C-alpha cells in the first residue's frame, strides 16, 4: 500500500488554471436555488423587499464572497485548518449553550454585535470537514479498526449532547446521520452499525423521558397523532399541510398563497418556506425545487466520485450527505412525514448562518473539484 499522505507536493495552480477547472455544474444549480429563494421571500414579505428578501440578498452576496474564497484558495489551507475550524465551531456550540439567545423555545443563537449566529448550522459544515480530514489518510487496515472510530464518535457526541440540550433536535439528528454516513462510506465494519442500532433502540426510552423537552415530546406525539392537539402543537403542521395541499398542481399564483399571505402559515420564511413555494407554485414549483436539489446531490456525488484524492472525495461526499439530510428532513417535516424538528431548507430559508455555512460547503466542494487531480499530504504541505 502506498500511503497517499506521502505522495509528492501538489503543483500549485495559478488562478486561470483554477478558473478553467471551475465546475459550473456545481455553481449553476446552487445559483438557481438562491434565485428561487429570493423570489419566494419577496412573496413572504407580501410583495416587498422587506423584511426578508433584501436582507437575504445581502446575505447571499456575503455568501458568494465566502463561496469564492473557499473555492479558489489552496486546498491545503483547509486541510491544515480543519481541526481549528472544528474547534471554533465546537467552542461556539458550548458558548451558545451557556450564553445563547433563546428563540422558539430553544437556545440557538449567539449575538455577536448586530449579528445573530446559529452555531449549530456552522457546526455541520465543520463536522464534514473534520471527518474528511480525519479519515482521508487512513488505509483500509486502519479503517477497519474500531478504536479509530472512537475519536470521531466523540467529536460528534459532545456537540450532539449540547445541541440536544439546546434543544435542537433537527440539527442533532443531522449531525448524527452525517457522522454515521461518513463512517459507512469510509468503510467502517457493517457489524458496528447493527450493534449501534440495537444500542440506539435501548437508549430511546432514556432519551424520551430524560433527554427531551416537553414540547419536543408533544411534537412527536402530535406527529404520530395529528389530531392530538389541532390548535396547539399540531396547529403549525396542520396549517402547513393545508397550505401545501391547497396549492394543487399549478399553485395559487405568485403572492396569492392565501394561507401564507394571511399568516396562517407560521415560520413561512424559514423552516416552512417549502410550504409557501408549494402553495403559490403548486406541485410544479415544489417538484422543480426538489429536482434541482436532486441535481445538486447528483453533481456533488459526481464530484466525490471523480475526485482523485481522498480528502476532496470525503469533503464532497460529506457535504452531499449534509445537503441531502438538510432538505430531506425539512421537506418531510413540512409535508407531515416527520415531526417538526426545526431544520431550515438549504439555500432557501431566511437566515444567514445556514446560508453561509452551506455556501462555504459549496465553495469547498468546488475547491475539491478544482484540486481533484492533486495529490495531498496530511500536513497540507
Amino acid at each position, binding site marked *: 500500500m502506498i500511503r497517499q499522505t506521502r505522495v509528492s507536493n501538489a503543483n500549485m495552480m495559478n488562478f486561470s488554471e483554477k478558473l478553467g477547472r471551475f465546475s459550473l455544474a456545481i455553481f449553476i444549480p446552487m445559483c438557481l436555488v438562491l434565485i428561487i429563494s429570493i423570489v419566494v421571500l419577496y412573496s413572504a414579505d407580501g410583495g416587498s423587499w422587506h423584511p426578508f428578501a433584501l436582507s437575504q440578498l445581502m446575505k447571499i452576496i456575503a455568501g458568494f464572497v465566502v463561496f469564492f474564497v473557499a473555492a479558489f484558495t489552496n486546498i491545503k489551507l483547509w486541510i491544515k485548518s480543519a481541526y481549528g475550524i472544528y474547534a471554533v465551531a465546537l467552542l461556539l456550540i458550548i458558548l451558545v449553550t451557556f450564553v445563547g439567545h433563546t428563540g422558539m423555545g430553544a437556545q440557538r443563537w449567539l449575538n455577536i454585535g448586530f449579528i445573530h449566529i446559529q452555531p449549530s448550522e456552522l457546526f455541520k459544515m465543520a463536522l464534514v470537514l473534520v471527518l474528511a480530514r480525519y479519515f482521508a489518510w487512513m488505509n483500509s487496515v486502519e479503517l477497519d479498526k474500531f478504536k479509530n472510530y472512537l475519536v470521531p464518535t466523540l467529536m460528534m457526541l459532545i456537540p450532539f449532547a449540547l445541541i440536544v440540550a439546546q434543544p435542537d433536535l433537527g440539527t442533532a439528528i443531522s449531525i448524527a446521520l452525517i457522522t454515521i454516513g461518513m463512517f459507512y*462510506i469510509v*468503510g467502517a465494519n457493517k457489524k458496528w452499525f447493527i450493534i449501534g442500532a440495537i444500542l440506539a433502540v435501548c437508549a430511546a426510552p432514556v432519551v424520551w423521558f430524560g433527554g427531551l423537552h416537553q414540547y419536543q415530546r408533544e411534537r412527536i406525539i402530535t406527529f404520530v397523532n395529528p389530531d392530538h392537539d389541532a390548535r396547539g402543537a399540531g396547529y403549525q403542521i396542520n396549517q402547513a399541510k393545508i397550505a401545501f*395541499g*391547497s396549492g394543487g398542481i399549478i399553485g395559487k399564483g405568485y403572492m396569492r398563497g392565501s394561507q401564507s399571505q394571511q399568516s396562517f*402559515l407560521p415560520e413561512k420564511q424559514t423552516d416552512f418556506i417549502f410550504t409557501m413555494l408549494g402553495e403559490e407554485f403548486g406541485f410544479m414549483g415544489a417538484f422543480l425545487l426538489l429536482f434541482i436539489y436532486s441535481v445538486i446531490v447528483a453533481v456533488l456525488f459526481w464530484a466525490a466520485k471523480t475526485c482523485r*484524492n481522498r480528502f476532496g472525495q470525503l469533503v464532497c461526499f460529506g457535504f452531499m450527505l449534509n445537503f441531502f439530510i438538510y432538505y430531506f428532513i425539512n421537506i418531510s417535516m413540512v409535508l407531515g412525514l416527520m415531526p417538526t424538528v426545526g431544520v431550515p431548507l438549504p439555500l432557501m430559508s431566511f437566515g444567514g448562518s445556514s446560508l453561509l455555512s452551506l455556501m462555504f460547503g459549496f465553495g469547498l466542494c468546488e475547491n475539491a473539484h478544482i484540486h481533484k487531480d492533486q495529490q495531498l499530504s496530511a500536513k497540507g504541505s
Partner: protein
Amino acid sequence: MIDTEISKQFDRRSALFLTAGTVLTSVLVLRMLQMQVFNYKNYKKQSENNLFRIQINMPERGKILSRNGSPLSHDAPVYRIYIIPEEAPDLEALVNTVATDLNLTKKRVDNIWKKIKKQPKFQPVLVSENTNWDKLAGIQAKNLAGLHVESGYARVYEMGPAGAQFFGYVGAPERAVPNNPFYTHGISGMEKQFNETLSGVPGQTVMITNAVGRVTGEDKHQFRTPIIGNDIQTTVNDVIQRKLYDALTMHRAGCGVVLDIENGDILALVSTPSFDPNNFSNDDADEYIDGLRHDFAKPFMNKVFEGLYPPGSTFKIVVALAALESGAVTPNETVFCPGYWDYGDRRYHCWEAHGHGKVNLIGALKHSCDIYFYQLALRIGIDAIKTMAVRLGMTEKYITDIVQKQMAGIIPDRKWKESNIGAPWVHGDTIISGIGQGFILVNCMQLAVMMARVASNKRVIPRIINDGTIPKFENMGLKKTKYVLEGLEEVLKKGGTASGSAININGAKMGGKTGTSQVRSISKAERLSGVLTNEQLKWNLRNHGLFVGYAPTNAPKYAVCVITEHSGSSGPAARTVSTIMKELLGEGKK
C-alpha cells in the same frame, strides 16, 4: 491517488446511498402528489374555511303598519358599543368610564369582565346594545381607545303590551347563527308568521382573517348589500288598539276584539295581562320574563283566539234567532218568570231570584231572563241551536294563516256528548245550553263574529291584513234579526242589563248583550245558605263578565266583544265596550 481497494469500497458503499436517496426522494414526490393532486380538493376547502370570516349584515326589518300607515312595530337604528380589550391602554379605566357614562348595571359590568377574561383580547366585547344618540355622542366625544361603535337595528314595539301576543316580537334564535351575533328573527305572533316577508335579505361582508382569527382585510368581491324587508299592512287602528288595552288593564285579566262589520277588518285585539316586548332587551329582562312566566293569568296567551269561555247570556242571541227563524216563537209570545222553573226533577233558577214576571222575546233579551231561554231552548232543541251557532260562525277559526294557535271551542250536540262525555244527551243539557252554559265554549273572536253577522245579516269574515280589496260578504238570509236587534238595543236602555253603559254620540247608539258565565256551578247547599256573592268568592272562582255590542244601531258598522275574566259581573265588560264605541263613533276625536 486513492488506492484501488478504498476506491472500490467507495463505489460499493455509495450504491447504498444512491438507492436510499432515490427511494427517499420518491417518497417526497409521492407525498407531494398525494397532497397537491389527489387530496387537493380537501385541502383547498380547508384553506377557504381558514381564510374567510363572513359577517352577516342584517337589513332593516319591515314594519308592521296600522291601517293608517303608522308603525306598530318597526326597526330603529341603535348603536352597539363594544370594547376591543387589546386596544385599550387601561382596560379597567375604560370599562369604568363606559359603565358610568352609560349607567350600566353592576350585573352587566360583571358580565363584561367575564367576557373580557374568557375571549382572546382582540375579540370585541359587547357593552351596550341599545344606546341612544345622546349617550353615544357623550361617550364618543371622549375619544377612548379600544371603544368601538357599530350601528344596527333594534325592534321598537309602538303598541307596547297592547296586542303583544298577537303582533309578537323578535329575538335571537335558540342556536346562535354563525358569523352573526346580532341576528334576530320573529319569535312569536305576526313577527314570526311574516318573518320571511319582514326580514328581507341579509347582506354580507366577507372579512379576510389570519391564523388567529384577526381580521386583516375585506374581500370586496363577496360583499352583498342587505335588502330591506317588506312592510305588513294591517287593518289595526292604533288608537283603538291602545284604548282597548288601557280599558282592559283596569281589570286583572281579559280580552277583547273590535271588528269593522262592513269589511271584516280587525280594528283592535287585546289580551291582558300582557307583556311589553320593549323590555326584553333590558338588563333585567330575565327577571321580567320569569315574572311573566309565573303569572297564572297567562300573559303570553293570546286569549282572543286561545281563551275559551262559556258564552253565558250572550249566547241568548243565538238561541233567540234560532227560535225566531224556525218559527217556533213569535216576538210577542210571553213566558212567566217567577225566578225559577221546575223541569223534570230539577229546579232551574233565573239569575233574578225574584223573577221577571211576564216577558216576551225582546224583554227576555233586555233583562236576560234565564227562564224564558230555558223554555225556548227546550222547545227548539239543541240541533236547531247548533245549526244557528254554526251559521253565525261560532265553530270556526279565523285568520288561521296568521294565528295558528287557536281554540275553536265547543257547540255541543247529541253525538258530541256521546263520544266526548260518554253519556246520552238529556233535556237538562238543552235547557242550560239556552243560557250559554253547560258544555258550550267559545272564544272572543267567535263571539265578535257572531255579533257582526247578526247585526249585518252578512257572513262577515274577519281579516287583519289589508290587501286593498273590499271583501263582499254573502247575505246570511236571516229574516228575523230585527227582533233580536231590537232586544239588544233595549239592553242598553233604561232597565236593561247594561243600561249604565249606554252611549249616544250624535244620535248613534249601541246595542249589545251582557253575559256572565259561571266558572263553577253553585251548589245547592250554597244556594240554600243564602248564596255566596261573587265578592266573597276567590278571584279565580268568580264568574267571567262578557259583553258583545254593535253600533250604531241604525246602520251597524262596528262589532265588539270584550271578556273580563273573573270580574264577577258583566258590568266591566260592558263599560269597556262602551268606551271603545264612544271612541269609534267620534266622541274621542273631539
